[in-house]
């Protein structure tokens, strides 16, 4: 099974609140069901992405970390 990612964001080095703001902007461009992936280095982004997903209703389908880089995958919610 392969799922394509519609948009990939490089948010490495950015501090709060820019990772979420750039993600929110990019999510607006997606169609329902499409996926966005984001790479960040701000440790605060771990809880921020979780909270943003919960409040906005766009599911965070994956969250991981590799060598200090966090990777998040969000799915645009159905309209």
């Amino acid at each position, binding site marked *: 099974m*392969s*799922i394509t990612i519609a948009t990939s964001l490089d948010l490495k*080095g950015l501090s709060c609140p*820019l990772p979420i703001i750039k993600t*929110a902007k990019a999510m607006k461009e997606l169609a329902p069901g499409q996926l966005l992936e984001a790479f960040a280095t701000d440790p605060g982004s771990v809880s921020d992405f979780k909270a*943003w997903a*919960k409040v906005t209703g766009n599911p965070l*389908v994956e969250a991981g970390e590799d060598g200090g880089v966090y990777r998040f995958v969000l799915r645009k919610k159905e309209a």
Partner: protein
Amino acid sequence: MSVTLDRPLTETTTDEPVEKKPEQTDKLIIFAWSGELDKIWPTLILATTGAAMGKETTIFFTFWGLFPLVKNEIRVTGENWMQKMLAVMNRGGDEHLKLSKMNFAGAGPAMMKHLAKEHHVASPDELLTIAKELGVHLIPCQMTMDMMGLKREDLIDGLEEPAGATKALADAQGAITLFI
């Protein structure tokens, strides 16, 4: 840009249904009363984040909070000598803000801005631009403008119509309300 994941997505992370708790509100209003750098900065961080979370967000700028909205190139505002003196003592513009503590005649803000740049924190100026892009309502207080002699053309572009306390409190109805 399209990338293919090498493994299926696990649908377990936080794929919980969104619970709309009764206390969860979709509006945020911040009363920006202080004009200092270390107060305006978090105000703009919270406002842009609120808008990015889909909340209808408003900042009501009142008293000292109005001065950061003065155009940076305008040195003196006001019509009479008292208003002018006030502007001289308290220069407007988001590039000329002071810190509420450890200002050290401007050395404090300079160091703070240096640290922010190093840590890729957006400046108040950048955050104001983002706030406008995200549709944050930026409302100047009419009464403060009159009292301090600030004219509409002294203030930056992209603001909404100046308004009073009633409009601000009406916007605050059912909203998360912060006074900074």
